[in-house]
């Protein structure tokens, strides 16, 4: 029988903030953009009794809980803590499927001879997370992803809910159907109208009736409600490439204009690499000319990089290999490949500027998360906007 764990960090962003700043502990903390028009990214458990929850407009959150302390998100820090948590997951099984920074499925079926059954592994993971990060996680243990996810969510925070094999249907039966992913404000009223309230009600319905109410999705809902879910845990793999390209409204006619466009593309690509926690070792530049001829040139770097400056320099280094005299360029793109999540280690001739550039990139990313994409950019690129 499969043993699937769903592990979910409790109030992750807010808990990281409380953990890093003792002055916030025990107080209602709301993470989100500081303006009243911003949105709540996360709320601490102290804020939740007031009705504050994530995705709520900040203005509404502060009306419900005027004493809440608003903290701006620090995505780079959350990614760092998430890295530690996922490293802990990796000690127990290679089959880890991350859903976000704070949530993952683990298939521990074949780890049981080493670490004990699913419940024992979940307990060890919760302990290790608490010991190594000071944070609290909830875990669900079941024979499928669907049931494990519902289980982990049932008794938050600091929960461990185990659904033994064969008990799936009985476990799901009394739960309100809104616990199912995808059944929310739009779908639930339609189902309630016809007298369906619990997951058990859905399981006992005629699948054709659900298809009538929900469309093709009805069949899947019916199967899941009965606890039938054979989806595999798909381990995370680094993407093959991350890139960005832009078709210009007016053709670019000078090397300087192409270089400037490359800087803009490099900045986009760097932001994506940083946000997703990657570094790349190969940079490919793509130019499409006015006659739609497409040329690409690549540069492979000795060190995987993730900052605008390094990507831009590598990209510009390829320009000598493109015909540019008297040419008209309509599209400029940069794509990166040989992507890794392993941060480059120290080298014989360490360049102190390299780690600073990554830090700058993380800062730019934080600003973008707080204020949107207009927050911060390079002066050179301002002329374009």
């Amino acid at each position, binding site marked *: 029988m499969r043993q699937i764990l769903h592990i979910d960090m409790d109030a992750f962003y807010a808990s990281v903030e409380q953990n890093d700043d003792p002055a916030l502990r025990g107080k209602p903390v709301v993470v989100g953009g500081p303006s009243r028009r911003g949105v709540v990214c996360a709320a601490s458990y102290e804020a939740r009794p007031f009705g504050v929850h994530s995705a709520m407009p900040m203005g509404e959150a502060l009306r419900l809980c005027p004493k809440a302390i608003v903290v701006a998100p620090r995505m780079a820090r959350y990614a760092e803590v998430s890295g530690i948590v996922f490293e802990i997951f990796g000690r127990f099984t290679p089959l880890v499927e991350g859903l976000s920074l704070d949530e993952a499925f683990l298939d521990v079926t074949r780890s049981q001879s080493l670490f004990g059954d699913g419940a024992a592994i979940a307990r060890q993971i919760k302990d290790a997370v608490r010991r190594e990060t000071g944070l609290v996680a909830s875990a669900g243990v079941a024979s499928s992803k669907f049931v494990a996810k519902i289980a982990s969510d049932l008794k938050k925070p600091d929960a461990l809910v185990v659904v033994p094999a064969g008990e799936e249907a009985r476990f799901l039966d009394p739960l309100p159907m809104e616990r199912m992913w995808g059944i929310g404000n739009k779908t639930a009223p339609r189902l309630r109208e016809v007298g369906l309230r619990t997951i058990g009600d859905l399981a006992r319905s005629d699948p054709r009736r659900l298809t009538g109410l929900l469309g093709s999705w009805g069949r899947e809902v019916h199967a899941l409600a009965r606890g039938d879910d054979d989806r595999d845990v798909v381990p995370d793999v680094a993407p093959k490439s991350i890139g960005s390209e832009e078709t210009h409204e007016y053709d670019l006619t000078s090397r300087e204009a192409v270089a400037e466009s490359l800087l803009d593309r490099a900045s986009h690509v760097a932001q994506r690499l940083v946000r997703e926690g990657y570094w790349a070792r190969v940079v490919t530049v793509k130019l499409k000319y006015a006659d739609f001829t497409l040329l690409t040139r690549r*540069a492979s770097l000795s*060190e995987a990089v993730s900052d605008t400056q390094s990507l831009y320099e590598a990209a510009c*280094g390829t320009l000598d290999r493109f015909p540019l005299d008297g040419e008209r360029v309509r599209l400029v793109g940069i794509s990166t490949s040989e992507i890794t999540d392993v941060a480059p280690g120290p*080298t*014989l*001739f360490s360049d102190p500027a390299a780690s600073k550039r990554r830090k700058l990139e993380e800062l730019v990313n934080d600003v973008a998360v707080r204020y949107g994409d207009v927050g911060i950019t390079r002066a050179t690129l301002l002329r374009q906007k």
Partner: protein
Amino acid sequence: MELTVAKKDLLRLVTRMQGVAERKSTMPVLSNVLLAVDGPNALRVAATDLYLALFGRIAGEVHKGGSVAVPAKDLFERVKMMPDGPIHIATQDNSTTTLKATGSARRYTLRGMPGDDFPPLPTPAEGSPTLALEVDVLKALIDKTHFSISTDETRAHLNSALFEWDGDTVRMVTTDGHRLSKMEVKVEGRQASATMLIPLKAIQELRRSCDEMLSNPTAGPEGKDGKPTLQITQSGSSAFFQGGGMTFSVKLVDAQFPPYSQVIPQGADKTVRAPRVAFADALKAVSVAASERTGGVKLSLTKGSMRITSESPESGDGFDEIPVEYSGPNMSIGFNAKYFLDVLASITDDEVEVSLSGELDPAVLRPAGGTTKSDASSDRQFLAVVMPMRI
């Protein structure tokens, strides 16, 4: 242009031109080989990518002067298919070139470009200093160091090898930032001073030149004692290597090689002496199971023994153990196995010495004797520095 040359001679030069002619250049002529009549009884064959240039002369029976540039790959494939013996080469006014076997019906026609379109080849300035170096010495320098040249074309100073002539020592140093190799050979009685940064592509070509001259010693003029010798001339920003009937010129990298002597650890306090072949064998075996992402293996030293382990979340663990000479404290240190294997494969000694300090400090590998043909002889000194990795 019209002349007759021996297939064997032409094929030898045209083969070598393949590594230099640039197929992807924005200048189409650079994907060609220049064939030019040079005096009453010689043909000059040349290729260049504007950074490297290679040219040679072969004897021929000239009927009519002139020159033509023909696609390098096409020419190579056709000359290779010619029967042994003389080949008759003739060009028409529109640069169409005919190759015809003498005494056989086999014939090719090639579309060429006027020889005048070919860029001028560099020549050393009059009176530039010239040094003579045995081909086997240059080959040893390159063989022991080429693998740690960085392939990062955006960093020209690492994408090249440092060649130094320092008193009576010639030296080559290469590094990619994670490892460094240094080979020195004493050339008694020849004092000189020179520093050149030779780009990777040129090092690969030089290596081929050396191999060819050593395997085919009749190809060109020889040194005093019968050993094949290269004449090295530095002129302006270029260096010229002449030997084996060919001249190879390279535009040197105009950059500063990193201060390499500073990163060669001096005060390592732990020394391991390991049997080279067994060490390489164990490393190769354990690295099969290393994480694909890092290629890392862990070396754990205890008195008299080295354990080599690898762990991969995807594919499990690997383990091996070999006896070594070691009497220091227990320690563990992680490395990219490939970096060690490249070094171990380049040396011939039975024993290798690894000097270590802390687990985050670079290791130094040196050949440690045990064979008659040692790399650690009094006139040859090799060492490699490898940065550790966190495991």
